């Protein structure tokens, strides 16, 4: 049975600098998978390659059964691949509600319509509003994103990607730097995601990783060091060595 997401021999170099070196990675359907590694290991680069924001130097990327290596980013999204960004990447001048509406509109393929006013699709806006309620953002629905605190913006970042109803979701440090009330909301949302979504989380917070992930891949300097269950990873001396050099990881 094909994986939800797979890379074969994925490579990327910028001149003499190799940031991804022959990565063979498999994300199973319904996975709860974490990608960890020291800073500069190439985790975000990997996500950029997989989503199509960056084009690989070599290798293949498969989404389900189809080879998407040459497909542009937007088309991969249409096939069910979504991501959040490590740094909030939102429409800062638009309202929270509208940020989510844009995503839903693209998903429903009505975002390019010219013949109706933008405010006429009640079903769409209701869905967006419901999504905000689930994340506790309802009160901020009409506020421009740039007026929100960092933690609240991080929730919007999650809401926008979830609005795409993806089959494969890549979360890049979703709770990093997020203060308490919002971070528990984020964790709750992640934990209650439908079981058929394949989830890959990049994280540094080991408590979070061990709580959410059933499988962990360790990336070091663009290469996979080891992959296994949380218990196997925790016990692996190589992993500890890689992190000891970093100092305390919490």
């Amino acid at each position: 049975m094909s994986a939800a997401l797979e890379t074969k021999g994925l490579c990327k170099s910028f001149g003499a600098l190799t940031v991804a070196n022959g990565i063979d990675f498999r994300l199973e359907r319904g996975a709860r998978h974490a990608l960890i590694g020291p800073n500069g290991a190439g985790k975000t680069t990997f996500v950029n390659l997989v989503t199509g924001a960056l084009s690989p130097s070599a290798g293949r990327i498969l989404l389900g059964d189809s080879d998407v290596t040459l497909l542009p980013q937007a088309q991969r999204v249409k096939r069910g691949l979504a991501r959040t960004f490590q740094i909030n990447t939102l429409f800062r001048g638009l309202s929270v509600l509208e940020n989510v509406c844009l995503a839903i509109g693209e998903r429903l393929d009505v975002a390019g319509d010219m013949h109706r006013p933008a405010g006429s699709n009640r079903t769409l806006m209701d869905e967006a509003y419901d999504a905000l309620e689930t994340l506790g953002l309802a009160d901020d629905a009409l506020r421009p994103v740039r007026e929100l605190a960092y933690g609240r913006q991080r929730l919007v970042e999650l809401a926008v990607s979830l609005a795409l109803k993806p089959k494969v979701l890549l979360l890049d440090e979703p709770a990093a730097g997020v203060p308490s009330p919002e971070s528990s909301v984020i964790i709750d949302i992640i934990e209650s995601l439908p079981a058929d979504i394949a989830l890959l989380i990049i994280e540094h917070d080991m408590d979070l990783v061990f709580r959410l992930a059933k499988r962990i891949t360790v990336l070091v300097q663009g290469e996979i060091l080891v992959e296994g269950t949380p218990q196997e990873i925790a016990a692996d001396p190589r992993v500890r060595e890689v992190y000891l050099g970093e100092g305390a990881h919490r």
Partner: protein
Amino acid sequence: MTAALDASPPAAAVNALARRHRLRPLEALPWLAATAAFFVFPDYLPLGAQILINILFALSVDLILGYAGIATLGQAAFFGAGAYTAGLLAAHGWGEPISGLVIAGLVAGIIGLLSGAVILRTRSLTLLMLTLMIAVMLQEAANKAGSITGGADGLQGMSVWQVLGLFRFDLFGRTAYLYCLALLFLGWLAARQLVHSPFGRSLTGIRENEARMHAIGSPVFRRRLVIYAISAVMAGVAGALLAQTTQFVALEVLSFERSGSVLIMLIIGGVGRLYGAFIGVPLYMIAQDRFAQADPVYWDFWIGLLLIIVVLFARTGVLGLFEQLLRRWSPRR
């Protein structure tokens, strides 16, 4: 949560967003003013027609600049293409104005589509240069193809027939004014529809954060190309209006001065607010009519200074200042 029947907050937020795009009574103001001007200033109708034409032109720039965030130094390419198309048709025996307008718009649109398909793949500075290159190329071609276009002397011998077979272009500019007003109205209708549609909102998204648009599956290049082509059609129609109402086409319709002055007019009014053109163009052109004839050197100097001041201190133009004042006087939502 509470039932959907009462006016609970959920409905309120959604309602507010829906209301944003509906027609407001204030929006009738420009049309009332323009109609009133027809009766109140019968001696200034030729200037009035010029203003209406430039509003349409500025509107075309606002669509790509204010909404899609595409900066251009060469919008005159489409304006001029429309002007010369309408001019050549009228000079070679086909003086029917409305069909001439349509053909001119189509020609400009095709040039927009073809050039856009090629240059919209590039970014900011390079794109800016390329928009300039297209306009400059067209201008040079028109200059050198003098046997067709009249070159530096301009295209003469245009003979424009009656509008709808009924309204002759009279010496006082009455027909011209109303003709331009009607076309501006149609153009505005189209622009307003576009801007307030899901397509228009996605353009705002592209301008706000292109990376995010890609990440939600939006076909960014296609959307930009579409609005670029539509903007070219609109600019072409404006150019054709100029040709038909003045029965003459000069080389300057393709010039950098044309592209530049329409940008200035739009900036003064306010970019990305749909009505910036309606404010900036009349202000600029009426002032120009009053002061530039007396002393063009004087005019260039002060307009240059005004432009610098606007860019430094009033980026959002007259409409932006207006919005700021409103926000200060009525702080509640």
